[in-house]
């Protein structure tokens, strides 16, 4: 039995790692200046196992085939006026949130992986990161293309990139990635490669894609399938980095544990946006946020942390708080956005009776007791022509940048409120998790660009909220913002489907 041909592993090694070279006249530490400052100890890069074996040649061929199929669907969607076939125009607000909040993260991921793909001493890790970086660039492009069709027919899509860098709620996902990208290369990999792409991806990406599938959004669904065939690679890279770090040196274990604690908590805070999307923004619901959390974090994540326990890694700190929050998160988040819809580039609304019943059924422990009475009250106000908008600006958590509206889990009527003092200044937090993250690196988080503070400091182009929204955020006031009911989006939808009220018809006839 003689080997007539190299196996896949050896061939991949020759096509990637063997392109590396020894540094004969440069100090290795000068070539890779970021490899040591985080405290991570790498004793042998050759122990890195390539998580996937894909050459650029194969990559182009494979991706070209995907693009061809994907863009054929986009064309068909546009030509058939696919925007008219979604379940209900309210659904499109979930897509607005995705385009302004999530798609720019794909671009940040592209930047981040390209950056760390230069910083690692091991060529296997560098090649894998560069490959993922290309995937992320493809994802942001295809997402923009998938959703650009909606921009022709609905409001709020026009300046997503501009808004991502400025608007208050978009600072939540933006600052999450800014935090990861301004960390060292190993923390970035644990934050994005592992915690985000492996542990939490099924709670971020999948709900949007299945939401699209359940609500007739063919373009977004197809994009989702196309991206998911790449995600399998990203997940294996996330797993390899965590195994590699934990096996390289015992001193890495506590550092990795702290990063897992931090990024799990930052991730669950960001998922608050997804929770309200699932429970409130989808006309056809897929599953409740609570159900998704149980399947994807408690079961799947539980199995993962059981395996990680073999390395001495424990469940993330505050996993218990996050589990308790599954009963409350979506309702509290939707309340915050309902309060501040006049300052958002998408619409909110109070659920109708049938939707409230669904929430009661899915959240028997909390919805009727804590949230339904409040929502019914707001609905009454709306019927009386006094739709409630909160005229003040909220205080934001210094770490996650979400308005301080979350409650204690042992008392859902009491707002959770934590403080730290650093160099004589007080900083405010929504939770123990966010306070811990600040306390470990205060010099980083005192620099947080908090949208509300920035407005009050006069850095957002105006003295009053309206000017900020119009000129600094570039929102079309009275069009992009405010309640769905009465919005131009709603009016257009009704025209397409001949849903004018009898009153409107009479007015037109007279």
């Amino acid at each position, binding site marked *: 039995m003689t080997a007539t041909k190299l196996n896949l592993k050896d061939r991949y090694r020759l096509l990637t790692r063997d392109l590396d070279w020894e540094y004969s006249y440069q100090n290795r530490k000068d070539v890779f200046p970021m490899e040591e400052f985080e405290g991570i100890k790498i004793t042998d890069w050759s122990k890195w196992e390539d998580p996937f074996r894909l050459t650029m040649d194969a990559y182009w061929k494979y991706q070209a085939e995907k693009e061809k199929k994907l863009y054929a669907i986009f064309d068909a969607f546009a030509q058939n006026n696919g925007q008219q076939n979604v379940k209900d125009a309210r659904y499109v607000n979930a897509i607005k949130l995705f385009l302004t909040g999530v798609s720019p993260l794909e671009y940040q991921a592209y930047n981040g992986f390209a950056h760390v793909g230069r910083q690692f001493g091991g060529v296997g890790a560098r090649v894998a990161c560069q490959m993922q970086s290309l995937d992320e660039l493809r994802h942001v492009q295809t997402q923009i293309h998938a959703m650009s069709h909606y921009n022709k027919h609905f409001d709020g899509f026009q300046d997503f990139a501009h808004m991502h860098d400025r608007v208050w709620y978009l600072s939540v996902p933006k600052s999450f990635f800014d935090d990861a990208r301004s960390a060292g290369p190993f923390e970035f990999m644990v934050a994005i490669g592992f915690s985000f792409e492996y542990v939490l991806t099924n709670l971020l990406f999948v709900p949007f894609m299945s939401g699209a599938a359940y609500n007739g959004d063919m373009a977004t669904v197809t994009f989702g399938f196309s991206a998911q065939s790449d995600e399998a690679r990203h997940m294996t890279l996330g*797993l390899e980095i965590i195994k590699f770090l934990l096996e390289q040196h015992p001193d890495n274990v506590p550092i990795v544990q702290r990063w897992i604690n931090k990024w799990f908590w930052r991730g669950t805070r960001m998922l608050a946006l997804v929770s309200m999307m699932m429970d409130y923004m989808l006309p056809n619901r897929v599953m409740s946020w609570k159900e998704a959390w149980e399947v994807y974090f408690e079961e799947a994540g539980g199995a*993962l942390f059981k395996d990680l*326990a073999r390395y001495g890694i424990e469940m993330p700190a505050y996993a218990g708080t996050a589990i308790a929050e599954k009963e409350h998160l979506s309702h509290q988040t939707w309340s915050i956005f309902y309060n501040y819809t006049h300052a958002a580039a998408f619409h909110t609304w109070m659920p109708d009776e049938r939707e409230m019943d669904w929430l009661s059924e899915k959240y028997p422990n909390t919805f009727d007791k804590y949230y339904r009475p409040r929502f019914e009250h707001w609905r009454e106000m709306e019927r009386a022509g006094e739709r409630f908008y909160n005229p003040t600006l909220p205080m934001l958590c210094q770490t996650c940048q979400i308005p301080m509206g979350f409650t204690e889990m042992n008392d859902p009527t009491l707002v959770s409120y934590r403080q730290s003092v650093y160099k004589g200044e007080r900083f405010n937090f929504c939770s123990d998790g966010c306070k811990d993250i600040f306390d470990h690196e205060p010099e980083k988080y005192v620099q947080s660009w908090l949208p509300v503070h920035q407005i009050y400091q006069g850095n957002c182009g105006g003295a009053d909220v309206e000017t900020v929204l119009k000129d600094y955020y570039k929102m079309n006031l009275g069009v992009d913002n405010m309640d769905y009911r009465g919005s131009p989006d709603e009016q257009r939808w009704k025209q397409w489907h001949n849903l004018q009220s009898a009153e409107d018809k009479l007015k037109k006839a007279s």
Partner: protein
Amino acid sequence: MSYEVTVEPTGDVVEVEDGQTILDASLRQGVWLPFACGHGTCGTCKVQVLEGDVEIGDASPFALMDMERDEGKVLACCAIPESDLVIEADVDVDPDFEGLPVEDFTATVESLTNLSPTIKGLRLRLDRPVAFQAGQYINLRLPGVDGARAFSIANVPSDSQYVELHIRRVPEGAATGYIHDVLAEGDELKLSGPYGQFFVRKSAPEDLIFIAGGSGLSSPQSMVLDLLESGDTRKITLLQGARNLSELYNRELFTALAEKHDNFTYVPALDNPEDGDDWAGFSGYVHEAAIDYFDGHFGGHKAYLCGPPPMIDAAITALMRGRLFEKDIFMERFLTAADGAEGASKSALFKKI
């Protein structure tokens, strides 16, 4: 009518009968391919067809995507050749795997002994010599029992006219019940083998740790005896776990070997010794004995684990906490029908653990 399938990168050639799957033919002819479920749902046995025609068979659309079908990927466990083929499989050429062919044998019961109150020693004389690697197993067929049962071979490969098996009685188990209650000397049985990827990586320079529980002593016994027989000079430590003294079988054999060979250490452990056992050895589970003996540091070894799933599980955790990781740990889990239910959700963190 049969077709020749050439497996790259090793260049092995397999003869596949009409209607036979590539995987079945390969395994039977000693060509190992990665596989798991064996019926087209997991995708572990995905291979690339480089030349020739093949019927894809009953592969799940989730395990073999349309795009992969277009690229000529097939699942070896359901693919049936329709011409001579060249396929490429994701196989590492393990320098220690001998790739011995699987054959069918007729065996006669030479002896049946009570090794312990729950474990029988079954020695079978074969109709012709068998070539196997220490640690591998055979599939045994028993009258009136559906399907074959896997048992590890406990004797050394040089004892090639025989296979010796250690068989624990599984409560209400049809096959093990038959062996314990009905089987008699002189009976004839059908078996096939050898199978399995559990063998000593002899080319690896590290010292060796064997951890055995219950009748899982069989493979390690064969492996240790084979190493000592060949004059191997690396340090070899065998840890054997049993419930009490009466279940701790073949102790005299290993105690004597430890006296004879400086490089061999034998550490028996009882987790529940009885009052009459007068036990001066290690009391506790066998993975605890390993932590105790190696002072919690396992790095720089190769470890071989054999026994029931809970023992394997505890041993893996002990080894990993002591900084010996997946690629240095080899294992054979003794699954019974009762273990089938434990298929709770599993993460993708490990490949073989």
